[in-house]
């Protein structure tokens, strides 16, 4: 339980932290520290297991089918990183408390910081590669948000975007790599993967998987050629730079390589890819760091260089090199975080980070200067400090590589050269900032020491540098051993953490680096002149260029595809559908199943021919809209007949009444619309459309034919058997609607209601003046509401209502039901509107259709919920029989209440839609008052 808790706590803290914002900055800082303190306490008891070389594992199933589990795993390596994250995280919180201005959004800052902490802990404690990837991506996201914390700065936003693009792209590659590894091993659990190293390395896809995983690691850890995002991420507040972009997040790539070391390392591919990338990064970062005038820029490139150093060590593939790599992770985190914090203090107190202006600060802040100088010495690799120890190990290892011929000289030379640069830039950091004359034109003058406790975190870290440097075995010995053992899979070589190993070649290299670096710094002007001649390849410019090119391509592609023409979209849609279906269709072609064809009888044949002709004629004459509409209604009526012909009386009745309403609706629309469609499409466009339409039609014909002639089995046996005994009705279609599939129907009438309300909302306050006459210039008839129609329509109403009541009541047992009855009632009411006008009818209808819809939905829901009161599931129905005086024995089913809801919803929705359209014309009210009254 404790491991998931460690990961979860910071996230909970991130939610809780803003609540403390009211209590002031101190309250929120304290609240933000709590998760880390609890986490440290929770990790402590596991030490006994880990020091004995064991692992702690907590597994909770998540999606076992996908191999994804909430599995958390603690071993030495994970513990080392977790401690770095937690302890430096705590120090950063203290530091931030003094760093942030009162006016800043501290709640957001601490929330994001805690989110990051949780994600980072998630990476190191995940026992499942997929789970780890999720946290990996979360760190990219939180890093993005933290870099752009000062959202008003354009550079911050750009830097954040670049960091996200690079690390996110790497995350994508990593996902691919992890999936490949998971496929090779058959599991994503870390234990399984680590145990299957030989299997992975022997697999044909190993080079691909390795490359993808390394892409993820290199991008995250800012390795060449992806290093350029890190200096631009320095737009973040300095505590963030210290924490994310020096001590923890950029080490995630290193962690990944160390984590998967047993599974992936030890091959030639690993050696060349990792060590050469590391070497390039080491040298490049160290070289550029020399020439940065920005304090944080110097530290950023120095970080790049040190990350390259660790990568190189991991790439060497020897066990001692891996130990040195882990050791340097600890050392770099301590001295670099303290240097960043010192840089933040200087920025805070002087208002600038430009080293050409910051000079001679020793006089103003000796305490801070002392701390920074110790940390910088560690960075340079001065003896008795921790940086010296791991650098010595690095020098020693660079001599151990068995490269052929002259190549063997390359690693030691690169190492010494990088060491020289490191000493030079460290010397610059110390000398330029704290000595070298007087400050030049500082925004804040005179600078002074920061608040007492702002220095506290730096003191702790510097103390750690010295402790590790002087007493390495006591201070980090056990932790390092445990982490190295976890990295190497339990196979730890003999190594000694001594301050001095005697006078040997590595020591000579250290001397060379030290004095060479100092010499280089004294001669720096020559190097600056030399560097100024070089044409700098700016990674940022390249990145921005590539991004803008991609954006241009995306824009022109979008412009081409999405040109605002609905016609084009519809065409692409239909063509895509045809394209997808053409493959299976082409395979079978004209396919007649084993049931064969049944004979055609004359009436059906004639009706079908009329339907086909009318359908085609509708398309042919569509430009004369009224005729097309008449033809369309012919099609609809024959469809109704087809339902009746093929044993679906309910459908026939529904189609018939819907047809009436639809045609009235379209007639009404045509009243406002032009009655002609202009000839707009070119001949070739029309031919193209005809071909598309024919292809679609032919496809549908083939599919239908294949389907109709195939034997089939259906689940409907169940409905047929249970309709009467279970649902109490003999009309199976109706029983399905109101009982078996009642929930579907409830959803459907809700959709109907929403559509009607949408129509009402869309037309409210919209005025549309109909053209004065039809398209041929004839005025509309003056006889708006014909006398004969009026006289016939009025007595029709009660008759129609009676029919609909009958249809409604019998629906459970004979064709009919709520849908059909509702439509019949609607038609009867619409007839009154047509015959007598809006005002006349509205005056006589004592309710609003909105309410009818609402009542319908209410009835349906209550009928469904009623069964809950009796302890049955939603929409369970019951039925019984009562004997009425005249009617006789009559069945009453609770489904009838549901059907009543359907009935009301259908009436309300249909009429609301039509009446909304009828009300559109500004003249309709006046006209109907005059004519209809």
């Amino acid at each position: 339980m404790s491991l998931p808790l460690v990961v979860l706590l910071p996230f909970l803290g991130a939610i809780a932290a803003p609540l403390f914002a009211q209590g002031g900055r101190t309250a929120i800082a304290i609240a933000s520290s709590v998760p880390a303190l609890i986490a440290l306490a929770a990790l402590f008891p596991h030490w006994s297991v880990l020091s004995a070389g064991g692992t702690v594992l907590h597994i909770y199933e998540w999606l076992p089918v996908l191999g994804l589990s909430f599995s958390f795993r603690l071993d030495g390596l994970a513990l080392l990183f977790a401690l770095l994250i937690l302890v430096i995280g705590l120090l950063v919180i203290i530091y931030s408390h003094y760093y942030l201005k009162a006016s800043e959004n501290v709640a957001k800052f601490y929330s994001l910081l805690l989110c990051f902490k949780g994600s980072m802990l998630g990476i190191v404690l995940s026992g499942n590669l997929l789970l780890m990837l999720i946290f990996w991506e979360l760190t990219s996201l939180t890093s993005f948000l933290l870099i752009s914390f000062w959202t008003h700065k354009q550079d911050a936003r750009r830097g954040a975007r670049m960091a996200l693009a690079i690390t996110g792209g790497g995350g994508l590659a990593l996902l691919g790599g992890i999936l490949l590894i998971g496929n090779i091993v058959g599991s994503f659990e870390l234990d399984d993967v680590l145990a299957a190293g030989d299997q992975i390395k022997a697999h044909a896809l190993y080079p691909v998987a390795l490359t993808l995983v390394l892409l993820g690691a290199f991008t995250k850890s800012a390795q060449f050629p992806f290093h350029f995002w890190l200096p631009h991420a320095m737009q973040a507040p300095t505590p963030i730079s210290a924490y994310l972009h020096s001590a923890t997040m950029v080490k995630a790539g290193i962690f990944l390589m160390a984590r998967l070391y047993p599974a992936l390392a030890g091959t030639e591919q690993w050696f060349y890819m990792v060590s050469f990338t590391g070497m390039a990064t080491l040298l490049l970062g160290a070289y550029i760091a020399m020439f940065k005038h920005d304090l944080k820029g110097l530290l950023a490139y120095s970080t790049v260089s040190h990350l390259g150093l660790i990568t190189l060590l991991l790439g060497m593939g020897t066990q001692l090199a891996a130990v040195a790599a882990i050791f340097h992770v600890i050392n770099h985190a301590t001295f670099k975080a303290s240097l960043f914090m010192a840089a933040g203090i200087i920025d805070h107190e002087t208002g600038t980070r430009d080293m050409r202006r910051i000079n001679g600060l020793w006089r103003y802040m000796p305490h801070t200067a002392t701390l920074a100088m110790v940390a910088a010495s560690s960075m340079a690799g001065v003896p008795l400090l921790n940086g010296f120890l791991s650098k010595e190990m690095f020098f020693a290892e660079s001599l151990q590589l068995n490269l052929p011929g002259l190549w063997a000289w390359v690693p030691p030379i690169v190492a010494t050269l990088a060491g020289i640069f490191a000493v030079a830039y460290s010397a610059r950091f110390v000398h330029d900032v704290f000595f070298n004359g007087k400050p030049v034109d500082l925004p804040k003058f005179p600078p002074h020491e920061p608040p007492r406790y702002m220095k506290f975190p730096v003191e702790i870290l510097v103390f750690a540098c010295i402790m590790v440097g002087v007493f390495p075995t006591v201070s980090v010995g056990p932790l390092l051993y445990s982490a190295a053992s976890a990295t190497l899979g339990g196979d730890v070589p003999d190594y000694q953490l001594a301050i001095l190993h005697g006078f040997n070649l590595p020591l000579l290299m250290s001397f060379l680096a030290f004095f060479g670096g100092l010499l280089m710094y004294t001669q720096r002007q020559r190097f600056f002149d030399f560097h100024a001649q070089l044409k700098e390849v700016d990674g940022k410019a390249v990145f921005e260029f590539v991004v803008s090119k991609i954006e241009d391509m995306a824009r022109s592609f979008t412009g081409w595809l999405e040109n605002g023409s609905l016609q084009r979209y519809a065409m692409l849609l239909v063509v895509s559908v045809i394209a997808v279906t053409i493959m299976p269709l082409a395979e079978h072609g004209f396919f007649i199943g084993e049931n064969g064809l049944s004979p055609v009888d004359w009436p059906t044949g004639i009706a079908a021919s009329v339907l086909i002709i009318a359908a085609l004629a509708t398309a042919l004459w569509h430009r004369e809209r009224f005729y097309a509409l008449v033809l369309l209604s012919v099609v609809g009526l024959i469809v109704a007949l087809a339902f009746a012909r093929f044993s679906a009386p309910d459908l026939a009745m529904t189609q018939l009444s819907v047809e009436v309403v639809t045609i009235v609706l379209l007639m009404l629309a045509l009243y406002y619309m032009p009655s002609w469609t202009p000839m707009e499409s070119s001949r070739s466009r029309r031919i193209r459309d005809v071909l598309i339409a024919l292809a679609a039609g032919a496809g549908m014909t083939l599919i239908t034919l294949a389907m109709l002639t195939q034997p089939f089995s259906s689940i409907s046996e169940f409905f047929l058997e249970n309709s009467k005994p279970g649902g109490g009705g003999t009309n199976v279609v109706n029983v399905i609607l109101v009982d078996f599939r009642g929930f579907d129907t409830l959803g459907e009438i809700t959709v109907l209601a929403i559509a009607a309300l949408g129509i009402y909302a869309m037309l409210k306050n919209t005025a549309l003046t109909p053209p004065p006459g039809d398209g041929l210039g004839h005025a509309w008839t003056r006889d708006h509401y014909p006398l004969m129609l009026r006289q016939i329509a009025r007595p029709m109403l009660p008759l129609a209502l009676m029919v609909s009541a009958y249809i409604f009541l019998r629906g459970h047992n004979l064709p009919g039901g709520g849908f059909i009855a509702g439509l019949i009632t609607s038609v009867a009411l619409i007839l009154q509107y047509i015959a007598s006008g809006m005002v006349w009818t509205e005056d006589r209808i004592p309710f609003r259709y909105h309410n009818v819809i609402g009542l319908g939905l209410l009835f349906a829901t209550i009928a469904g919920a009623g069964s809950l009161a009796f302890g049955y599931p939603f929409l369970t129905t019951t039925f019984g029989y009562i004997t009425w005086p005249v009617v006789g024995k009559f069945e009453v089913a609770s489904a009838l209440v549901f059907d009543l809801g359907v009935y009301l919803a259908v009436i309300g929705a249909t009429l609301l839609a039509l009446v909304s359209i009828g009300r559109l014309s500004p003249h309709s009210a006046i006209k109907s008052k005059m004519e209809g009254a």
Partner: protein
Amino acid sequence: MELLFAIAIGALTTSGVYLLLRARTFPVVMGLTLLSYGVNLFLFASGRLATGQQPVIGTTASYSDPLPQALVLTAIVIGFAMTAFLVVLSLRNLADNENDHVDGRREATTSPSKIEQEVSSK
């Protein structure tokens, strides 16, 4: 019978798709209506074509498949709601943009008044 039924669905689809690809709202609405006829018939046909076997218990010896019928019944009603919504959308487009082009832009290639001029000059 099956072939005739399939051809009828094909004809409905052909006309429907052709009208769907037109540039004015009203033909598109008609096209969608035709398409939904075709689709409804298709769904209905998944229960196969049966004569005189309405799924009302006790009226015949064997019954046609009631499930597609129930599905199509609601599909018809929902189809109507969709048609109505679409019609209203095109009316709103007409009111806002003073033309009935499907692209919903104010400057259509041909305005309705111009169409009427063309027609009356015939």
